[in-house]
């Protein structure tokens, strides 16, 4: 398929997207195409531009430059058609209303909603229907927000830090429900801080830094952009660790950690020079290492 054809059939097509707040270029030229059915994780450190990008995608803020198409429509038209919806990070619930009332209201405002009971069931909160929103835990509130996002039966679901207030168990349950939803062929874009969530649930990872996309691909591909492995070993009396294939050396007493571009060459040279080296462990770099390597400049 040509690029135009891909864009025409895309769930999301962002091109040349820019947004600045005063002197800060929050989003600085983002191009992104997401095909229907993809589950995409949007990663990046705080201030990378994730939330700003999500806001523009939802039509909640207007870009300074660039174009946004959601199923070929403007964000607002896609919202009106019920094709895109979102679980907002700071999305509030009305303190003086019940769960069923809040979800019922949002359903009533949509043109073709699913039954409220079904939305509550899919979000796993059927038992909370009559509960006032003030009486909910953080994780329960997140699930109500999930129900609010589901109720219009969107083709594209955008989740901004969906599991941030959840404990480990609730997170797992949430993603199980999420998976049940994505199995029906829906498109999902979720911004997250938790790399393990991206690794486990996303087909594709988009990494942002300073308002730009710095990596985009499958988890394996993104991992591979930071090639190399880590070699750990205990080397009594190691003096010179200037070995072939080693990029960086870290040591704590007899323990050494070598970041290698060629771990095979490094381990051979290490054993030749220090035959007493033991407890050798070689691991591939994880998504977290890739993440740190690709986004690290911000933290320095």
């Amino acid at each position, binding site marked *: 398929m040509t690029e135009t054809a891909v864009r025409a059939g895309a769930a999301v097509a962002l091109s040349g997207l820019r947004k600045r707040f005063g002197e800060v270029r929050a989003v600085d030229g983002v191009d992104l195409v997401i095909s229907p059915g993809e589950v995409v994780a949007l990663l990046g450190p705080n201030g990378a531009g994730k939330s700003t990008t999500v806001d523009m995608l*939802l*039509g*909640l803020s207007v870009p300074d430059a660039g174009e946004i198409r959601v199923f070929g429509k403007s964000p607002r038209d896609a*919202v*009106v058609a*019920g094709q895109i*919806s*979102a679980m*907002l990070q*700071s*999305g*509030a*619930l*009305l*303190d*003086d*209303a019940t769960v069923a*009332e809040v979800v*019922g*209201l*949002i359903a*009533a*405002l*949509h*043109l073709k909603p699913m039954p409220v009971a079904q939305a509550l069931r899919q979000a796993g909160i059927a038992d909370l229907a009559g509960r006032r929103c003030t009486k909910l835990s953080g994780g329960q509130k997140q699930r109500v927000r999930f129900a*609010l996002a589901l109720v*219009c039966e969107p083709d594209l679901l955008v989740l901004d830090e969906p599991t941030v207030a959840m404990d480990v168990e609730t997170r797992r349950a949430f993603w199980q429900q999420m998976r049940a939803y994505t199995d029906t062929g829906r498109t999902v874009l979720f911004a997250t801080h938790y790399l393990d969530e991206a690794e486990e649930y996303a087909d594709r990872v988009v990494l942002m830094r300073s308002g730009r996309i710095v990596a985009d691909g499958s988890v394996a591909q993104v991992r591979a952009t930071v090639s190399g492995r880590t070699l750990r070993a205990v080397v009594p009396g190691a003096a010179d660790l200037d070995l072939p294939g080693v990029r960086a050396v870290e040591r704590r007493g007899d323990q050494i950690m070598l970041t290698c571009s060629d771990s095979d060459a490094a381990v051979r040279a290490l054993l030749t020079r220090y035959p007493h080296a033991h407890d050798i462990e070689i691991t591939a770099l994880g998504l977290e290492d890739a993440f740190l390597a690709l986004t690290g400049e911000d933290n320095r």
Partner: protein
Amino acid sequence: MNTRFLGLELRRAVRNGRYLIFTVVLPSVMFVLFVNLYGDGEGTFPNGLPVTTSLMMNMALFGVMAGPLSIGARIAVERGLGWQRQLRLTPLTGAGYLTTKGALGMLVGLPGILLVCVIGAVEGVRMDAPHWFGVLATLWLGAIPFVLLGIVIGLIATPDGMQAVTGLASMLFGLLGGIWIPADVAPAWLAGIMKALPTFWVKQLTQAPFVSGVDVKQALLVIALWVAGLSVIAVRRYRAQN
């Protein structure tokens, strides 16, 4: 306008104990208090209006202001919560949002006015049916500028500053509007300010059938200017935020 939206908003307003006390009950309590303060209610003001009738209109007017202003306060809180963002992910338009809030303000103001008038009848206010209807209708329609004022405050103030702004507004529009002190006894400069406020003119309109010398044209003009001005501010403010 979405009736489900309005329905839920109404239910939330009624559920709020503070609403019931301040906007429905308080005007009537003040009314009873004042009637007893001014004696047996047999007296008549220089303009020919019986004291009880005049007090009834003033306290109903107080209710007309209080209800809509409380609705504005809720807009500020909802803004602070991020609820408006949630609503913007639905087909609800800005016009739909503002008209629903406006209709809500009008509905919320009604019980307080009705209650004051019922107590007025009990306390001895006598007028024929068309006049009762006229007074009620004028008071209720007189709520329009205050509904808009509530919305404007709700769109401008922060949730924290809301209480102070609402208090200031009801002070300004109540005290200077002639609810608590009549414009006749105010010095000229103060009377000038009072006559620029919608409160004064809504009261004038309410009294119009019973006293002579009410400038209905000017009353309608001043109120219309407030309605137009506040509408423009509300719409611009809403657009600027979204």
